[in-house]
């Protein structure tokens, strides 16, 4: 099966007008792309290239369906349109700006499973810290482990961590791209792109060989927001692109959740603001499931080995922001030798992870509660 000519035309037109749209949004893609995409074909052409809109439109429409089909097949991709049963029905919520056809790569058989009640979108900063990446990976891993489809955008930082987490659990994951479906953007994520394509799904509203422009990423965000029942923002500074996704999710009547971060951290200022504005508080995968499905479904409890009080004090210091041996010494008030060996024990147990510079970060692994205490 593949998309019918009428449905595919819209994607082809967007591809042909890509450069014009880029000029029309004047660097304010976040606000304007959505409005432009809500326009009908002719209005859109008139809006972005008033002078020769007719000619541009004609050129876009003159592409023959079988040529596009050939190009798709050469890139190992396929298309699906709204007339087919497997087309994600959730996208209809986007109203006039909804895509009529999708171009995809990877396991087409996953398409029917993309229901809003079993799909979660995880997004966040490309410049995420160790905290954001770790939380995104763990959320995705545990959610995918319970059969939830994890949707994200293949960007650096949180997006990549979410895909990796879902893949680590052997679960299903969907990458929604701003570029055509045959391209890995950014290029450094090539390997992840290939893995997602092999065991999951890659989707885009633009056909292969479309040149890349900035407006495509906020435009793509509306697809991610519409596909899932809940959009979880893991780590985002103010003015982060993932806040656009959250806004769009609200616009199409989906839930928005955010992972809290330290109020002193600029990295979490966007997510903390979302929480202040009423987003669901996401502390763990269970919170996501509760928001999506209501209470009932449980994530299997996982925790690490027990730790003795001395190491507990060091772990507390790291959780409070100490990332080096010196900082632990200063915060926990213990001697350096003891601090180092405790850090080593905690890293071995999986509670901590060091980055390439040697800074220690807390993982999402939970400490077992001492017997007799209650949550």
């Amino acid at each position: 099966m593949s998309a019918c000519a009428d449905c595919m035309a819209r994607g082809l037109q967007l591809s042909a007008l890509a450069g014009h749209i880029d000029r029309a949004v004047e660097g304010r893609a976040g606000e304007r792309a959505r409005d432009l995409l809500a326009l009908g074909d002719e209005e859109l052409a008139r809006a972005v290239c008033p002078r020769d809109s007719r000619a541009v439109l004609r050129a876009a429409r003159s592409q023959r369906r079988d040529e596009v089909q050939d190009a798709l097949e050469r890139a190992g991709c396929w298309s699906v349109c709204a007339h087919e049963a497997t087309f994600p029905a959730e996208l209809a919520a986007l109203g006039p700006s909804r895509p009529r056809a999708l171009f995809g790569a990877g396991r087409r058989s996953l398409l029917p499973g993309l229901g809003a009640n079993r799909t979660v979108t995880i997004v966040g900063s490309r410049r995420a810290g160790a905290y954001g990446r770790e939380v995104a990976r763990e959320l995705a891993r545990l959610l995918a482990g319970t059969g939830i489809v994890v949707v994200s955008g293949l960007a650096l930082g949180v997006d990549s961590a979410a895909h990796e987490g879902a893949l680590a659990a052997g679960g299903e994951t969907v990458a929604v791209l701003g570029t055509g479906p045959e391209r890995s953007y950014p290029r450094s994520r090539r390997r992840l792109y290939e893995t997602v394509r092999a065991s999951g799904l890659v989707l885009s509203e633009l056909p292969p060989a479309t040149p890349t422009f900035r407006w495509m990423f906020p435009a793509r965000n509306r697809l991610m927001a519409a596909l899932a029942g809940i959009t979880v923002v893991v780590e985002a500074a103010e003015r982060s692109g993932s806040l656009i996704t959250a806004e769009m999710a609200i616009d199409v009547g989906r839930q928005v959740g955010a992972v809290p971060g330290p109020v002193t951290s600029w990295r979490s200022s966007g997510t903390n603001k979302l929480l202040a504005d009423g987003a669901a508080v996401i502390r763990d995968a269970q919170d996501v499931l509760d928001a999506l499905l209501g209470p009932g479904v449980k994530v299997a409890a996982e925790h690490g080995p027990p730790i003795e009080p001395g190491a507990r004090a060091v772990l507390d210091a790291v959780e409070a922001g100490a990332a080096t041996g010196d900082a632990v010494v200063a915060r926990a008030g213990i001697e350096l030798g003891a601090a180092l060996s405790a850090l080593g024990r905690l890293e071995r147990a999986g509670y901590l992870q060091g980055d390439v510079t040697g800074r220690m970060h807390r993982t999402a692994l939970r400490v077992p509660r001492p017997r007799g205490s209650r949550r």
Partner: protein
Amino acid sequence: MLARTRTLALHGVDAIPVDVEIDIHRGLPAFSLVGLPDAAVRESRERVRAAIVNCGFDFPLARITANLAPADLRKAGPGFDLAIAAAILCASEQIPERPLADWWLAGELALDGSIRGLPGVLAMTEEAARNGGCGIAIAAANAAEARLVEGVTVAALATLTDLATLARGELPPAPATSAHENGGPPFPDLADVRGQPGLRRGLEVAAAGGHGALVIGPPGAGKSLAARRLPSILPPLSRSEAIEVTKIASVAGRPALDGTLAQRPFRAPHHTISPAGLVGGGSPPRPGEITLAHRGVLFLDELGEFARSTLEALRQPLEDGRVTIARARDAVTFPARFQIFAAANPCPCGHGEDSRQCNCRPDQIRAYASRLSGALADRFDLSMLVEQPSADALGGDPGESSASVAERVLAARHRQEARLGPGRCNASMTESELAVHVHLGAEAGAVLANGHGSMGLSGRGWNRVLKVARTLADLRGLDAVGAAEIDSALIMRRRGST
């Protein structure tokens, strides 16, 4: 008429005996020089002629042929002047040949006949001592350096006329030299590193086990300050080590004019250095920074900025303790047993990824991190992370002094030498030595077994952890390596590498 004298040519950091043969016979006056001389040696003819005449001798008006044997060794530099002049004076019977033939002669002539000092006199004197003979005659300026070698007579010559004194069997009057050893300004003291216990501990462990170390931190956190204090806590050089270091410095053009032995070298080449500048090169090959750092510390500031090819060139020397520079005609081996110490910023802008001031793009950070983790990844045992010291620490009491840290380091080194042999340290342990010398307590064995799988460390990575753990135990005077040492070594290990 024929005469022969003996001199020495430098080859790498060693000297090789060279015979100077002069033949004078009737014919058109000419002076030819054979035996692979370079430009400086060929120009020696002009200096020799002027020096002989200006000292009141006669320059023979005849056909003079000078041969430098062995003829297949390339001769460089002005050091053959003295031996050539002496041979001419002997061949022309102006001074008797017999007494001079057993002296090693090395010096550059000035046009007025005075004798100038040379680089590499220590190496030459050592070779002269090995080969026997009356002794070595060199420029007065080099006398103090030559006297560092025991068991060889040193004749200090001021001018060419002193050769006549020597030929009479007398030593020319020696210039007064004060023989003091291991001089030079003292190294800066570790007490200047205030606060920053992790950095101080890292330095101490690096010094105690001879471990290569990397320190990561923002600009101004005291990385270079700490590195420059590493030599102050290393054990003092033994006499033979100090002679080696002095010899290299002299060959490289820093002769020990006042007869003091060199200290532990500390070399800090700039990151724009070429591979040849770092490991040695040129024609004839000259020692690079790693040879100048022999028995000392090579400090690479801004490790991430060094060219990859430059760092790769360090790999083999770090393993072998020496470097061989091969040329079409010749190969020269330089000693290069040094301790590597490097510093780097946590990200390209230097502030660190977690800092708000950091304005690096994510792809820049990724590229930098992979450069950093790839750079000589398996040659550093230790890494330490420093942050800006707090105002309290900066204004607080000075840290423990170098002298008291050096005591612990020395004690730990003694334990290592008792185990591994003289001059060895933990960083140089082979895999089989690791198995023999790292006794794990029962708990530590369990730690190892449990960590091996869960932490994804390679076998090589674990060996480095074991070496550092061994040093930590040595610093505490323990025979067995405990779980605490293994865990601490895990935290101090170099990250992001295999």
